[in-house]
């Protein structure tokens, strides 16, 4: 009884590039990345609870080049997911649904997340730790 000739949605490749669709999948992608980084948060807390030696090995990893890269990517993912999440909450409240508004709020989130990440790392580098 399977009707294999049923109409299907065209493949994603036929659609024109849009900021809205790009940010939509980025919201999901950053969400998954942030879910994975809860593992690092739990490891950091467990190490702190386990003692100075355990803490030093986790802190040493976070301070190493791959650890700092994860922290940099994670901080951008955090600010993007935060900003775009607030954008979603406005939509949930029924606000900002016009096409032009969704594009403007999308670009605002992109700009705000880049600025917030830059400000955060300026503070981190200034404190020198």
């Amino acid at each position: 009884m399977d009707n294999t000739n049923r109409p299907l949605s065209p493949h994603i490749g036929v659609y024109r590039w849009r900021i809205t669709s790009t940010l939509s999948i980025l919201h999901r992608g950053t969400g998954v990345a942030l879910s994975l980084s809860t593992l690092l948060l739990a490891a950091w807390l467990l190490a702190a609870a386990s003692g100075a030696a355990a803490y030093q090995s986790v802190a040493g990893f976070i301070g190493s080049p791959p650890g700092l890269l994860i922290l940099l990517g994670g901080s951008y993912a955090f600010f993007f997911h935060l900003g775009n999440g607030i954008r979603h909450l406005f939509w949930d409240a029924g606000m900002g649904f016009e096409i032009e508004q969704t594009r403007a709020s999308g670009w605002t989130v992109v700009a705000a997340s880049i600025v917030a990440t830059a400000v955060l790392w300026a503070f981190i580098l200034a404190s020198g730790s």
Partner: protein
Amino acid sequence: MTIKTPMARALGLGSAKSGTEHWWMQRVTAVALVPLTLWFVIALLGLEGLDHGAVTAWIARPVTAVLLLLLVATLTYHSFLGTQVVIEDYTGGATRVITLLAARFLHVVVAVAALFAILKIAFGTDT
């Protein structure tokens, strides 16, 4: 007064009674996470050094411990709700069941481990 068919009434099946719970809790946790995550980032920036002594002394402070417990509980809940939607969108059959189970177990393990660590530091350190 029911609009159910006699067969539907006899079977007694219906919705799973969860309705919009999943969608709503995703929003509730999102709203709570805005101040909690921003507090966490700003508080960490404000610490004088991130060595073991400074970090455990900070976690042991009652206000910090309570906010961290709220952060970890809300964060892992929100994370699981989101992960669940992603898995349900892209997988099916046995893969879906196994991945959902694994995601749920992993989230509970992460949550309990982090909550325990906070409590151990909070109750084990004199401030």
